[in-house]
């Protein structure tokens, strides 16, 4: 079948992009993180944005699939498996984005040798490892020829809170930091969980639609419609949190927070903020709030894609805005961190910066695109192994009831 050809082409293309990223990473390792756009003022960039983004996608996927068993929503059981595959792949990607962000990855073993339990980053390492293990166990149990419902129930009871926790801890990496005005908020964890649900659900919908289109794994239109309804609810919760946060920053009228808001509303991260509000919240919500639109595959797909773009933008403005402004203002500011040898040797005009700036470089983009492609590669392989193979075997065995009963 021609499917086989396009399947191989797809795998080849994603693998190629992943290899390019590997090359770019080796280049980054040999030359230092100076090849990225990060600097002493904006010391985190695209990698950490994508780290947060993928932790969110992962948590969202698992929350939906484990709630099938926890809250006993039988309809969701049909999509539990693709949900857990997505979640596993996403958390692997999140971990990889930390590896490429770290300046001395060869020393990562220090995380095991000298864990410092005061650090939210350490908490995250622990929670992500536990979470990955739970994902793998969950996946293993689900893909048994005859899944043990009892065991699945037990694991899902651990999976659900861990999924909430993994994203809360990621939020606390930022929320507990007093140095950055825009991060230091108790609402950070709820905001992160809300956008995790939103983006995770959106990604799940997109994956289901793609599986529907290109494979034999079919999901009922009704189920997609109810997922879309859930998505609309999540978008509303997300919007509510963002509004509360912005209002709390705005109302007291303190100079430092007003400055952050002005960067967000009309400054250098404004395009990210408004893209999130319009693409991530207003448009998809207006589409999905109407039941009739939720029945149209095309509109649901468009909304899901918009939501994912929106949540990505949200991660980016959340991270970057608070870096841009120095807490103690004054010229010349801070040393940028790079020596620029080809500038006039007597004067180094770009060595000092009084305000942060950041733009990802080609190296960062190649690594980011490559890692995301690697994720798509993994998802494709896993989906084929775990969704389709079993589908075929179960059909051969004449047990297509279990999977087809949802149709």
């Amino acid at each position, binding site marked *: 079948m021609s499917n086989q050809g396009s399947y191989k082409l797809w795998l080849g293309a994603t693998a190629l992009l992943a290899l390019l990223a590997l090359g770019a990473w080796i280049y980054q390792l040999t030359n230092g993180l100076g090849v990225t756009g990060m600097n002493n003022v904006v010391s985190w960039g695209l990698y950490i944005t994508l780290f947060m983004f993928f932790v969110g996608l992962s948590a969202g996927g698992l929350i939906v699939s484990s709630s099938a068993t926890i809250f006993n929503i039988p309809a969701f059981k049909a999509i539990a498996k693709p949900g857990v595959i997505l979640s596993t792949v996403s958390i692997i990607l999140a971990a990889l984005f930390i590896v490429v962000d770290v300046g001395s990855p060869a020393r990562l073993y220090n995380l095991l040798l000298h864990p410092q339990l005061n650090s939210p980053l350490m908490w995250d390492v622990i929670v992500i490892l536990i979470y990955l293990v739970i994902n793998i166990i969950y996946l293993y149990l689900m893909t048994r020829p005859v899944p043990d419902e009892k065991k699945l129930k037990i694991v899902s009871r651990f999976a659900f809170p861990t999924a909430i926790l993994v994203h809360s801890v990621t939020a606390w990496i930022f929320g507990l930091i007093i140095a950055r005005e825009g991060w230091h908020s108790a609402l950070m964890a709820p905001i992160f969980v809300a956008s995790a649900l939103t983006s995770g659900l959106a990604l799940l919908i997109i994956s289901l639609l793609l599986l529907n289109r290109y494979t034999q794994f079919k999901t009922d239109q009704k189920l997609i419609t109810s997922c879309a309804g859930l998505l609309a609810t999540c978008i509303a919760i997300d919007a509510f949190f963002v509004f509360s946060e912005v209002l709390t920053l705005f109302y007291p009228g303190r100079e430092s927070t007003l400055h952050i808001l002005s960067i967000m509303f009309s400054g250098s991260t404004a395009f990210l903020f408004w893209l999130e509000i319009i693409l991530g919240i207003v448009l998809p919500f207006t589409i999905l709030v109407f039941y009739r639109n939720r029945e149209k595959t095309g509109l649901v797909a468009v909304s899901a894609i918009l939501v994912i773009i929106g949540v990505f933008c949200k991660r980016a403005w959340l991270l970057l805005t608070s870096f841009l402004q120095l*807490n103690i203002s004054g010229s010349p500011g801070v040393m940028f961190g790079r020596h620029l040898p080809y500038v006039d040797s007597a004067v180094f005009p770009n060595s000092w910066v009084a305000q942060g700036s950041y733009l990802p470089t080609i190296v960062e983009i190649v690594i980011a695109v490559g890692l995301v492609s690697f994720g798509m590669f993994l998802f494709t392989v896993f989906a084929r192994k775990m969704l389709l193979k079993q589908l075929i075997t179960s059909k051969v065995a004449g047990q297509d009831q279990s999977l087809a009963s949802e149709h």
Partner: protein
Amino acid sequence: MARLGMVIDLKRCIGCNTCVIACKMQNNVPMGMSWTRVISEGSEELDGAVGEYPFLNKTYIPIACQHCENAPCVKACPVGATSKDDKGRVVVDYDRCIGCRYCMAACPYNARMFNWQKATRVPDFNYGDQAVPLRKVGIVEKCTMCKERTDLGLEPLCVEVCPAKARTFGDLDDPNSEVSRLIREQNAEQLLKEKGTRPQIYYIR
């Protein structure tokens, strides 16, 4: 046990940047990086003043690591590479740092520098104190309050070279020390006091 600290008299600071250069020399700090800096407070230009003519005001503030008692960077470091040492200094273990830069995000004073690239030095050799360890690419570094000098009982180089004698170094735990006296008598203040980091660097305005 001691709690080493510093008092900087802003009325004395003339913004000459001698401390900046001395620090760079002593600690072998490469191009594009500086552990200490002198900013013109609130101004957008170097040596700029703030206010409306003729009521102008110009304050230079030398800023480096504040060696906070409640140091956010120490809490943030996932591997304990940043810690408070027995003399109350915040120090970085260059052999343990994994380069995650969480401490940089956690520092309210932007006092930390990352080795983004292979160090370039002008002149092209390792200068400064031989006892100061070299730092490799991919780790964080910052002011150590001249650990290598203060361990020998010397003052940090920025204190020693200041031509205006704006900087005073000493033990904050000793009520009879010059720093303790200045803080007491001159109402010395800490930077970004509201963040609750309890810096061990004090400023007299």
